[in-house]
């Protein structure tokens, strides 16, 4: 009786955004609670393994959608959005009976119940035998979110189980399908930068590589430009990848890179940190034994703090610091602000289309080697600064002019938050 009443649970928070694809949005709220029900644990895997695999499955969907998933072991059952459980034959009050090992291995109900056939041999991701519980869970959660089956090669929503290496991931089309229901992931960045690495190739030549990083709050993503997505498994907590810098809310990053200098600085509040790229940690003191972090006002005379953002212009050898509606041009050779600064941001970086300008409080200024351009991020949008190539094509463009704003999620794809409880997986 309890389960029957649940089926009649009002579809609050569930809407339908029908499309021709047969896919329909199932939830309208952004944080969804899930639970492996007490009577539904499998005897084949340890409880911890089962819950970890489900947590990972939900995390994989949260890495590509604006949805967060949180395991909830305490709230009343009616408040749990997605319930999972194992059973054999007639199981968990479900009207659809399992058929024993072989053929049907799981099913999902639109109202958020997912059942796994205990007669199947479910195995952890690393195993190369049996049926991967992770893969099946990701598939069934896809149903719960509103995705139907597809026969498209490579899709996780194919009806038949396709044995695959442990490293299966949600591909471009599956991502776009679910984002068609729930929208793309939006949001600004505290700071964004391309990290330069110097390596020697097999001929001993020095190769310079860059990696794109986006920071937000206490986590960050590596963005793989060539794959149009973040690294699988991101975001990651800042202290895990970056050592000795503040664990959250970084204001700015600057890389002073000349023939003689290669210095990287992180800024937060009224302090800054010098980062040692060889040792991959922040310096604790300078050559004279002075401690880091230092005061911005001492290291960069005339520069206010806290900062909104900053970037280094390699050609002019200037650091542009931004605060409010002002921009400060700092000469790194003479270690001082240029005389004519500070200026209004709009005077230094004019709007190409009238009034289409961030004006103040820029979240992050980012020079991208992938696009050979500077971008100003603010909210869910970015403004691209006119570069040399733009000027060659349109000489009338003002130097440092800002093109009209565009959606960040339309250029950097699937940069999605995950629930803080699943950050450290």
């Amino acid at each position: 009786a309890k389960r029957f009443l649940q089926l009649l649970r009002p579809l609050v928070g569930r809407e339908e955004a029908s499309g021709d694809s047969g896919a329909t949005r199932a939830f309208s709220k952004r944080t969804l609670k899930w639970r492996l029900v007490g009577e539904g644990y499998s005897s084949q895997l340890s409880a911890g393994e089962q819950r970890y695999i489900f947590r990972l499955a939900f995390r994989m969907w949260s890495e590509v959608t604006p949805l967060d998933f949180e395991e909830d072991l305490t709230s009343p059952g009616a408040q749990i959005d997605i319930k999972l459980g194992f059973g054999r034959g007639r199981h968990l009050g479900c009207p659809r009976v399992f058929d024993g090992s072989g053929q049907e291995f799981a099913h999902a109900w639109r109202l958020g119940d997912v059942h796994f056939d205990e007669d199947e041999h479910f195995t952890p991701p690393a195993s190369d035998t049996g049926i991967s519980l992770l893969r099946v869970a990701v598939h069934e959660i896809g149903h719960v979110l509103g995705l139907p089956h597809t026969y498209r090669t490579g899709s996780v929503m194919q009806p038949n189980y396709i044995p695959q290496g442990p490293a299966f991931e949600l591909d471009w089309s599956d991502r776009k399908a679910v984002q068609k229901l729930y929208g793309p992931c939006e949001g600004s960045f505290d700071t964004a930068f391309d990290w330069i690495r110097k390596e020697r190739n097999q001929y001993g030549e020095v190769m310079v590589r860059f990696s794109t990083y986006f920071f937000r709050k206490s986590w960050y993503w590596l963005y793989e430009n060539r794959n149009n997505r973040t690294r699988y498994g991101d975001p990651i907590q800042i202290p895990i990848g970056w050592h000795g810098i503040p664990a959250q809310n970084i204001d700015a990053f600057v890389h002073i890179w000349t023939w003689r200098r290669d210095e990287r600085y992180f800024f937060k509040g009224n302090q800054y940190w010098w980062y040692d790229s060889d040792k991959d940690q922040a310096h604790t003191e300078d050559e004279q034994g002075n401690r880091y972090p230092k005061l911005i006002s001492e290291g960069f005379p005339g520069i206010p703090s806290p900062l909104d953002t900053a970037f280094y212009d390699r050609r002019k050898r200037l650091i542009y610091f931004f605060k409010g509606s002002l921009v400060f041009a700092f000469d790194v050779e003479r270690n001082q602000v240029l005389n004519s600064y500070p200026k209004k941001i709009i005077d230094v970086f004019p709007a190409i289309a009238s009034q289409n300008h961030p004006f103040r409080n820029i979240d992050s200024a980012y020079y991208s080697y992938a696009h050979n351009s500077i971008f100003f991020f603010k909210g869910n949008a970015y403004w691209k600064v006119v570069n040399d190539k733009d000027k060659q094509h349109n000489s009338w463009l003002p130097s440092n002019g800002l093109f009209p704003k565009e959606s960040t999620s339309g250029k950097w794809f699937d940069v999605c938050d995950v629930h803080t409880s699943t950050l450290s997986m």
Partner: protein
Amino acid sequence: ETLFHGRDHSDLEPSLLRQAQPIADLRAAQGFLAKYGWTAAPRPGDPGPRAFAEAVRAFQSANRLPATGALDAATLRVMNRPRCGVPDPRGASGFQGVPRPRGVPDPQGAFDPRGVPDPRGNPGLRSDRDPRVPQPPPARAR
């Protein structure tokens, strides 16, 4: 319980009693196609051999098999493969918990977001061979 001996349960021996009935004949195949939304459930006296052949043909083409409409070994093999219990979009019978309201069209075509381009050709990316310009490192698995 399902018998095992190893600490990590990796040597589980599925019970022979609880095996799914293999789909090996016409009736079982009719049941399979009905269960997963390829045809309406067969009723006694149903004149539907043509409808059954058409459903088999549709199932075969979706699974990239020769669409003969005949119940051959390859088709039976696919029918017996492990799969999700949710019906396929073609003629889905609204199994997913809430019966489809009357008059709402069946999602005929298999869901195929081909319309979503994959802009790999990102503007501005240099060729890998230009050593003067910093290059991104190779992608790594999770």
